[in-house]
């Protein structure tokens, strides 16, 4: 049988194309972000001002943190619709806790988020209920709870250190931007460099196989939902610090926006594929859309919805084009 000792595997050429498209897909959102930045800078002279860019990133950081958690959940093959309401509840809890010091003001919403994530995770894993519905119910319940606790809003009279954590700067860069960047880095490490990260990918790629390969599927799922809840809680804490208030309506719509941002960033809704950098650039891209609408400065609210819907569609079209290129290149 010596004649059959060569195994044919696809050519190096298609291999290179494959890699290229994989990179473009993961970095596609960043490429679009850069192009859009240059274009916007050309059209709107104020866009490229350092202050405007800093404001843009600061404003994006809240959705950004939520999106990171959501990214883990989507890669795992699920959804978390409760994140938006959790942000709102998080700001309210932070406002209640603020008088007891910055540490408690941060810890309370964070712990609440972790608990909500735990509850979601348990219902999904142990009771085997669909993530979409479990987290949808959580969306309703948490929003109701936030309003019951706070009404419309609570002011944090003396934000002090708590407020400074959100609104101060390090070396001229806003703390929120620094925190967001740091959490991105951390998330990337967890996703790519730890067993937990590889389990998340494995479960999203093929849950049954992952189970057979000995991945602790249930535990990983629960932890991932906990993570997502925690990120939403953290985002709520920071938002409360930023605005010096607890707002029951904060975070409304984040559930779908975070999914959109992740998908624009190349995270596949089918699970198993995605990067932190991509998701983060997806968030920035969404932030840019709002910022550019503001730069236009006279678009009526009715047209704003239309415009951002079309922008969103374009971004997704480009992204899905890249995905298909990658598939066919393989």
């Amino acid at each position, binding site marked *: *049988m010596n*004649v*059959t*000792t*060569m*195994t*044919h*595997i*696809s*050519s190096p050429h*298609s*291999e290179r194309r*494959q890699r290229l498209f*994989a990179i473009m897909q993961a970095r596609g959102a960043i490429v679009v972000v850069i192009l859009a930045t240059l274009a916007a800078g050309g059209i709107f002279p104020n866009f490229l001002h350092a202050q405007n860019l800093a404001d843009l990133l600061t404003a994006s950081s809240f959705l950004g943190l939520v999106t990171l958690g959501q990214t883990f959940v989507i890669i795992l093959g699920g959804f978390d619709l409760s994140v938006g309401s959790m942000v709102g509840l998080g700001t309210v809890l932070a406002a209640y806790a603020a008088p007891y010091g910055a540490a408690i003001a941060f810890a309370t919403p964070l712990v609440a988020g972790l608990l909500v994530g735990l509850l979601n995770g348990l219902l999904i894993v142990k009771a085997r209920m669909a993530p979409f519905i479990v987290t949808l119910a959580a969306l309703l319940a948490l929003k109701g709870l936030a309003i019951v606790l706070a009404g419309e809003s609570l002011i944090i009279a003396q934000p002090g250190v708590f407020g400074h954590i959100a609104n101060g700067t390090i070396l001229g860069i806003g703390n929120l931007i620094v925190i967001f960047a740091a959490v991105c880095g951390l998330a990337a*490490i967890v996703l*790519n*460099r*730890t*067993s937990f*990260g*590889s*389990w998340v*990918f*494995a479960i999203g*790629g*093929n849950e*049954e*196989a*992952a*189970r*057979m*390969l*000995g*991945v*602790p599927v249930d535990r990983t799922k629960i932890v991932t939902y906990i993570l997502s809840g925690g990120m939403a809680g953290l985002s709520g804490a920071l938002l409360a610090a930023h605005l010096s208030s607890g707002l029951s309506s904060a975070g409304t719509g984040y559930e779908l926006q975070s999914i959109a941002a992740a998908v624009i960033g190349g995270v596949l809704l089918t699970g*198993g*594929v995605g990067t932190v950098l991509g998701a983060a650039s997806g968030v920035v891209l969404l932030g840019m859309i709002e910022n550019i609408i503001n730069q236009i400065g006279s678009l009526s609210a009715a047209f704003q919805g239309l415009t951002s819907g079309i922008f969103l569609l374009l971004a997704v079209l480009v992204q899905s084009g890249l995905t298909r290129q990658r598939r*066919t290149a*393989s």
Partner: protein
Amino acid sequence: MQLHVHHVAKSFGAVAALRDVSLELNAGEVLGLLGENGAGKSTLIKILTGLDTHDAGDIRLDGRLVRFANPRQAQENGIAAVYQEINLIPERSVAENLFLNRAPKRARYFIDRKAMLRDARTLLGRYGLSIDPGRTLRTLGLGTQQLISIIRVVSLGARVVILDEPTSALSGNEVELLYGIVRKLREEGIGIIYVSHRLSECYALCDRMTVLRDGVMAVTAPTRDLPRAKLVAAMLGRELAADEHAETGISVSTSAPQDAALTVRGLSWRGRVVDVSLTVGRGEIVGLAGLLGSGRTETMKAIYGASPPDRGQVAVRGHTLPHSTPASSLGSGLTFLSEDRRSEGIFPHLSLSENLSASMLSRIARWGVISRKSQNEMVDRYLLRLGIKSSGSGAPIESLSGGNQQKVLIGRALSTEPSIVMLDDPTRGIDVGAKAEIHRTIRELAAQGLGVLVTSSELPELVELTDRIVLLDEGHVIGEMTTSGHTAEDILAKIAHGQNARASEAVMVPEKETT
């Protein structure tokens, strides 16, 4: 190290998958586990690896009573399996798949990528595979994926390794690689349970064999005390009639091709099918042969329109297909059975009846409304014709054994009353009895004047089933031969020759085509 299975039973609702099964496995032994489709082999393995739990009986490892809650526990106790269907993570790299759960770490928590790639390369090399461990698994062929899956299990340091139809996706050289691995493990004192429908493999590898029939252990004996006829009789519960001897039978030569049923001219698809031309006559059975990844599957898919060809023409009975999609091909009398049953064949969660009738619904529909009566009649006809064993046509497809699922899919392909059938490895994972039935069906189809294009991962099977074989290499047709009077070895030699010829031609006259 010794594994004892003692009077184990397991039911799924009303179906008793295992009724009374006992077996034992010693260190350094290869035990063949055989049986018809649905005999309960996979079920037993799932129980041994903690994917399912038994209802009765007990399992002992070194005399210690065990019952695993999940595969991880089984793994920790030294039992690991490679399943019939490949179970890896397609979107991740080869190295990650190999080292999932046990990657080398730096600073305790962080995966050391470099070390992981290095270890993966070493591991693959040890078993004779030279693949870049950084490649995404999805980009490798099914056979290679299966090998990686085996290597992973082996490298986990299991003391009992279960291989459930490991060769069903392998061809030629890979089977050799696998034999090498199995023998090496035996030398290392590892116990192996080897499940296969390929009797010759079992005779080549196994020390002892255990046969299951309808969830009961029928026979256990050393290989040398179990001649083929006796083994087959134990599996089927009866003697196999002379013309059913699939693996040894001699093909009855069918009528010579009068007019072409299928004509393919200059078909190309993305560099993986290159300028393929072939014909299949009416009443002719043509085999597509080639090594793993030679492009058999893609050629069939390009003909079928599932991978829309970039160039070339396909004609059925002289009638050129305008633009091909699976739907239009079916309409023109061309049908195709995929090799990948799980992800391209069955409709999970739906019933046997739905699965069987999917392709022909539009034929029995009037104004878009489906006639229940014709649907049921049609389904019953094929259940009978193909001898499909199930608890009824309303049974969920997943409750059928792999082999019976395959028969349902063949029924689906035939239900459109095609004039050309393309079957990509139709007997993969199918027991001897059913295999003979499928062979007989294929011959009947040919006798009725249909053209058949077929592949198989077993070259001998292809040789004895077909009238003519078209040889493929890297998507090129490199030759053609009639099969009567030839053996599998002849064909391998011809493929090797064709490869060499193509390689040298490519150097000298690049644009010249090979036939």
